[in-house]
């Protein structure tokens, strides 16, 4: 058995940023475990640009953004093992992984969960029809085209207006495919407005809101999909069916934080984020087990993933040194038009970064953070969108150690 101060599970943007910050804070006994052949996570296949505008002030492609952090890890000689999948983490922070060298066990003082998320698949949507080839998630399409040099189809329908789906609509068009349309079951797009503009509008690809796939036809290869309009309750409206001949259906219907290991360790998850319940140190309800990035809650931008992981590193470093962190007993709850607020627990004694996502789009709103009668922060905003995460710095001066904090958005 090996020993390490900190084991980091996943060498994507969150894990890499946490490792570098921990090292710079003097925690040097670190081990990164990565299941893929190289570090970088999903950024390896995100070859489009637009990464790093917040973190570095320049627009980089995914591989370049990852390479900046990988370079920092290499420079510090922070140990990492690739082709190795963590299969279990215990409450006592014993990490078991399977890799080329066989089974690896590491007893850690602290464990950092940065496993990212995976895509929702056709199974999760229960779309009826046959099961032909040509139906795949946007990320899988992206890996085929950008990493393996395989074109996936010629006539493409995209279900879901997630950012990756829109980015793949543009990518497929550039590579010579015909993207018929993007259909979104919700009455509002789930991806960023700039991607609707530069990935769909630029190429004349229509976006139909309140529409979904209600049938899939084809024996070996996909032959057509049936699209129906949906009502206010997202139920297909009979009589609105329209059949589109196509050979490829791409699903961009949401990301799910990958938390089997987290649950296995005994940590509790938030029903809404599907990530761990954490305090202001990004510590789960199992002391010494931390989480940041997309495994904690799905982010819009990698820049915020890196910054969250860097903030996590400060808490984790203190935990390794002191053996525990201050208690966090004040709960943070989501009020009107707020889907989730994070962290879910704070001490009331320190500044913290509040992350939240609105449930519905709204204009000319007032965002309010309050603790009992006491208003901690109030901000007017021109518009809020579910596609855009909001982050606010909350100052300790306004906080008390008693009474829960509520975040709400109203007109």
């Amino acid at each position, binding site marked *: 058995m090996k020993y390490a101060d900190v084991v980091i599970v996943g060498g994507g943007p969150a894990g890499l940023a946490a490792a570098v910050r921990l090292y710079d804070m003097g925690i040097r006994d670190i081990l990164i475990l990565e299941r893929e052949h190289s570090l970088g996570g999903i950024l*390896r296949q995100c*070859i*489009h*640009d*637009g990464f790093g*505008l*917040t973190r570095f002030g320049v*627009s*980089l*492609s995914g*591989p*370049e953004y990852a*390479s900046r952090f990988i370079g920092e890890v290499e420079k510090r000689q922070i140990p990492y093992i690739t082709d190795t999948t963590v299969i279990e983490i215990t409450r006592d922070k014993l990490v078991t992984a399977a890799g080329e060298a066989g089974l690896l066990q590491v007893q850690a003082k602290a464990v950092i969960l940065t496993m990212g998320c995976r895509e929702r698949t056709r199974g999760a949507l229960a779309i009826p029809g046959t099961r032909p080839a040509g139906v795949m998630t946007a990320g899988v399409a992206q890996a085929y085209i*950008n*990493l*393996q*040099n395989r074109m996936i189809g010629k006539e493409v329908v995209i279900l879901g207006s997630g950012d990756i789906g829109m980015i793949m609509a543009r*990518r497929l068009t*550039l*590579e010579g495919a015909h993207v018929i349309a993007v259909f979104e079951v919700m009455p509002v797009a789930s991806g*960023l*407005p*700039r991607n*609707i*503009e*530069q990935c769909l509008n*630029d190429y004349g690809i229509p976006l139909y809101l309140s529409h979904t796939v209600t049938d899939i036809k084809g024996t070996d290869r996909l032959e057509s999909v049936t699209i129906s309009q949906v009502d206010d309750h997202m139920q297909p409206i009979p009589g609105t069916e329209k059949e589109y001949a196509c050979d490829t259906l791409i699903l961009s219907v949401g990301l799910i934080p990958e938390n089997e290991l987290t649950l296995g360790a005994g940590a509790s998850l938030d029903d809404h984020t599907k990530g761990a319940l954490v305090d202001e140190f990004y510590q789960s309800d199992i002391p010494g087990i931390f989480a940041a990035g997309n495994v904690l809650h799905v982010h*819009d*931008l990698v820049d915020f993933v890196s910054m969250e992981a860097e903030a996590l590193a400060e808490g984790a470093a203190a935990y390794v040194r002191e053996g525990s962190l201050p208690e966090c007993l004040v709960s943070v709850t989501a009020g009107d038009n707020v889907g989730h607020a994070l962290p879910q627990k704070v001490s009331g004694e320190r500044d913290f970064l509040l992350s939240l996502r609105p449930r519905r789009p709204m204009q000319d709103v007032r965002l309010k953070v309050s603790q009992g009668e006491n208003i901690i922060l109030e901000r007017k905003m021109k*518009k809020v969108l579910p596609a*855009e995460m909001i982050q606010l710095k909350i100052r300790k001066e306004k906080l008390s150690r008693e009474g829960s904090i509520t975040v709400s958005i109203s007109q």
Partner: protein
Amino acid sequence: MQREFTCIVCPNGCRITADYEKKEDGSLIIRSVEGQTCRRGEEYVRQELTDPRRTIASSAAVKGGEMPLCSVRLTAPVPKKEIFRVMEAIREITMEAPVEEGTVILSNVLGYDADLIATRTVHKA
């Protein structure tokens, strides 16, 4: 004339409204630009009204590498209508491994002030 824009410069994606007039000689008078939260938003709208430009990212073939492709991007935007011509130029490229991140693969693509660079390193197989 009024036209609405979604700024693509940064992820904020500001909704910007421009009020402008197109003269018969093709020149443009922009009366107002509203809704942007920074200076780059106004610049984007002016550019969009006169000469819309886009950057582009794709991948180019690599021979003898650890993977068959190397991701590439333009270092500056080119006119939007040239995007598919740039794609054609990228499709014609075949590089030999190793390729170093940051290498200029094509300079002044199609005569514009933009280079095509490798955005990752591809080692020899």
